[in-house]
């Protein structure tokens, strides 16, 4: 058993090693010009301004025309972008950001402290209907322009995640002049400082972006300075995975996202197509066990379930080496992630013993464990919008192996609205829900007991329903601690407690694979939320 597990880890490392080298080796001097067609498998945004709502499809496209105050490098350090520097006060309640003084929005409006104030006000205005940005600014009590290049954030309590929050595309800076237009207009053509400009948007077809020739403000880790190389970007929406890949093979499009394991394996046979693997930050993909109700209110039953699930074999066979098994609640791109493989060994014998101890001693005719006449059932609603086919198959494998120990896993494939409705009704024992956020503060959102209280929409993020005062204390303190080492230790302790409490069964990082034509050079993802940036990209054709 141990040997098998080690083998899988070795394969996983090998794959990770290949992809980290990056597909784009330098091929001569970059050339300007040309049109790149990007095909997204994500839903078409209903609004191109990521302040409104705030989801991943918006982040993908808006990263081409909007920019944030700060960014993050591949080592996890916050780096300058539209803000050159920043200084927190000693009590952590006041942050002064010094802004670049040479940036204008593409409508000619000057980027200055007043523009930042207007953007934060826009995000915090309930009529903007912002979700993600609004949530990230929860501790921001006020913003004022100290001078034209210095803007001051006043916080209601210290926020160690402030810079990480501001690095996200959902909090990007838009022209305050453009924000004064109606929301419909701003949704159709948001105005930023980015390397491209939204020229037109034909719904259900494509967004056309053209180069911003006056561009001056790449993030500190960009590959070049000055305007982008590409003349134009056609941003298409191709929902079907097979057609998306067929369009890439035929050369109709140059880059596709949401590449599935089978197409990635096919692409590896092709010289014309390269791969870019860039796991998303925040939480790893994991199965949350609902500790708020039977049977998973008993830690022994949670551990038994985790021990009974043969995840390693399922992941390696169904993802064919394109995904690496995770043993952490956090994404592997988070420097603060704690990984503990020993907690997740597949061990049906141990699982059986644990179930005996927990009183699930009888078995019914179908081989499922029974206690006091109740069968050991696990309701597992699956979002068919969020779980790709390979992941749904992993769940089926888990269902099959857990059955051998006596768990009846009831998988219920649901569309997104029905799935959220099932969660809001507390109608689940196990669930897998992705969560993307920059930095370890995602732990507070997912595992602090405050997050069990549903929002008015019925949504709550703590789906494992972890309610542990010690974990609460660790996460609250970490969120207020700006000292990097101290903060890391606190998050480390919190993760130990979460993993050792068997609340979650980590699967793999949130998958984020791109396939591109080999003649597309210089494409990379922003290390904030792993959306691609076409700023450095050029066509070698």
């Amino acid at each position, binding site marked *: 058993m141990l040997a098998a597990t080690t083998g899988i880890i070795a394969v996983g490392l090998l794959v990770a090693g290949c992809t980290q080298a990056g597909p784009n080796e330098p091929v001569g001097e970059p050339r300007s010009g040309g049109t790149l067609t990007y*095909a997204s498998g994500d*839903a*078409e945004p*209903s*609004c191109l301004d990521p302040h*409104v*709502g*705030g*989801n991943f499809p918006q982040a993908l496209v808006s990263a081409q025309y909007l920019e944030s105050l700060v960014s993050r490098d591949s080592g996890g350090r916050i780096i300058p972008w539209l803000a050159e520097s920043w200084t927190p006060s000693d009590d952590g309640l006041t942050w002064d950001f010094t802004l670049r003084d040479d940036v204008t929005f593409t409508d000619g409006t000057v980027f200055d402290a007043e523009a930042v104030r207007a953007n934060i006000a826009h995000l915090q205005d*309930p*009529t*903007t*209907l*912002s*979700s*993600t940005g*609004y*949530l990230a600014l929860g501790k921001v009590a006020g913003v004022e322009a100290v001078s034209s290049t210095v803007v001051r954030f006043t916080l209601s309590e210290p926020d160690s995640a402030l810079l990480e929050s501001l690095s996200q595309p959902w909090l990007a800076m838009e022209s305050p002049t453009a924000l004064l237009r109606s*929301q*419909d207009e701003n*949704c*159709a053509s948001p105005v930023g400082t980015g390397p491209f400009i939204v020229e037109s948007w*034909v*719904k*259900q*077809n494509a967004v056309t972006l053209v180069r911003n020739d006056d561009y001056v403000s790449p993030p500190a880790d960009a590959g070049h300075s000055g305007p982008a190389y590409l003349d134009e970007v056609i941003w*298409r*929406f*191709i*929902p*079907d995975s*097979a*057609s*998306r890949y*067929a*369009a890439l*093979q*035929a050369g*109709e*499009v140059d880059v596709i996202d949401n590449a599935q394991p089978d197409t990635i394996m096919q692409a590896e046979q092709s010289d014309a197509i390269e791969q870019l693997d860039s796991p998303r930050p925040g939480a790893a993909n994991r199965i949350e066990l609902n500790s708020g109700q039977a049977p998973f209110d008993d830690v022994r039953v949670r551990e038994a379930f985790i021990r009974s699930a043969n995840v390693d074999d399922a992941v390696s066979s169904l993802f064919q080496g394109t995904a690496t098994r995770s043993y952490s609640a956090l994404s592997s791109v988070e420097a603060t992630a704690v990984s503990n493989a020993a907690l997740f060994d597949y061990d049906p014998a141990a699982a059986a013993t644990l179930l005996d101890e927990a009183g699930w001693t009888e078995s019914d005719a179908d081989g499922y464990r029974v206690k006091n006449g109740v069968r050991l059932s696990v309701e597992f609603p699956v979002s068919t*919008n969020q779980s790709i086919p390979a992941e749904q198959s992993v769940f089926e494998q888990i269902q099959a192996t857990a059955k051998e120990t006596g768990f009846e896993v009831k998988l219920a494939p649901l*569309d*997104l*609205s*029905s*799935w*959220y*409705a*099932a969660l809001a009704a507390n109608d689940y024992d196990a669930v897998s829900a992705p969560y993307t956020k920059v930095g370890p503060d995602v732990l507070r959102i997912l595992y602090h007991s405050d997050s069990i209280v549903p*929002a*008015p*929409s*019925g*949504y709550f*993020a703590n789906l494992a329903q972890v309610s542990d005062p010690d974990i609460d204390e660790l996460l609250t303190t970490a969120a207020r601690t700006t000292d990097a080492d101290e903060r890391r230790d606190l998050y480390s302790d919190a993760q130990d407690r979460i993993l050792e409490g068997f609340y979650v069964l980590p699967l793999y990082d949130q998958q984020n694979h791109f396939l591109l034509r080999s003649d597309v050079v210089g494409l990379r993802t922003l290390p904030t939320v792993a959306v691609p940036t076409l700023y450095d990209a050029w066509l070698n054709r």
Partner: protein
Amino acid sequence: MAESVVRRRAALRVLGRLAGRLGGALFVLWAVASITFFAVRLIPGDPAQAVLGGPGSQASPEALAAVTAEYGFDQPVIVQYFAQLGRLATGDLGRSYALNMDVGPLVLSQLGGTLVLAVLSLALAWLLALALATWSTRGGLVAARVATSLEIVAAALPHFWLATSLIVVLSIWLGLLPPISTGGVAGLVLPVLTLAIPLAGFLGQIMRESLLTALESPFVLSARARGESERGALWIHALRHASLPAISLSGWAFGSLISGAVVVETIFARPGLGRTLLGAVTLRDVPVVIGVVMIVAVAYILMTLLTDAASRLVDPRLRLS
């Protein structure tokens, strides 16, 4: 005097028939709107979430309260139903919850793509079916057998399978056609083939059967006896007779093409009503779902009237009744 009475009676009969048609059409539209409204509202999912950026939005309480009040989601469903019906009665399709757009312009902007797809597919299906039917009745036993098998297989092909197979063979292996819609004529070929082939199989079966019956009928025999050529007997007499059931089925076929458009538009990434509908159902975007379904219902009603008229044109017996 007597002549004018007859004429007036005839006019009244036509008016009565028109009124009946109109009433029927209105009833269909009302039923479609009502069933759609309750169907979408009865499946789980909160429409307020569609306004706030999709299901699972972490909207602030203030934002949610504002949306709930603005759209009247706090009203009882029956009140919302009558409000929706009232708006529809005045021709107002309302505003999309999710797309920041009025439904009228949205649906109209997507209608063209789907109509082009449906009309071309129907035309191609007719051509293919006619070709198969005539060949099978004239080409002897082998032709009849081959045509029958082709029709049965074609009629049973699911759209998603056919679409993927056509992409693999014609786009990837042979490199002849773009695998996704590109806006040009080339991008239309695969979607139209996908919709036309199964329909052609279905229409072909019906046509061949009635063609065989017609060719053995006394009127064809008498035409032959009058010295009509074999080709004339087929094209002027038999086909006219044989096309009747297929014409009346075309109204139904048009409806099935629209539902096929949901699959085809998604696979080939074509803008259109089918894709709009799919997205709207996922988000519980009630006004868009109702808007699309109403437009499809109107198209369906018009198509039925057209096939009716076409049947009368082809078959003089219907004109007399």
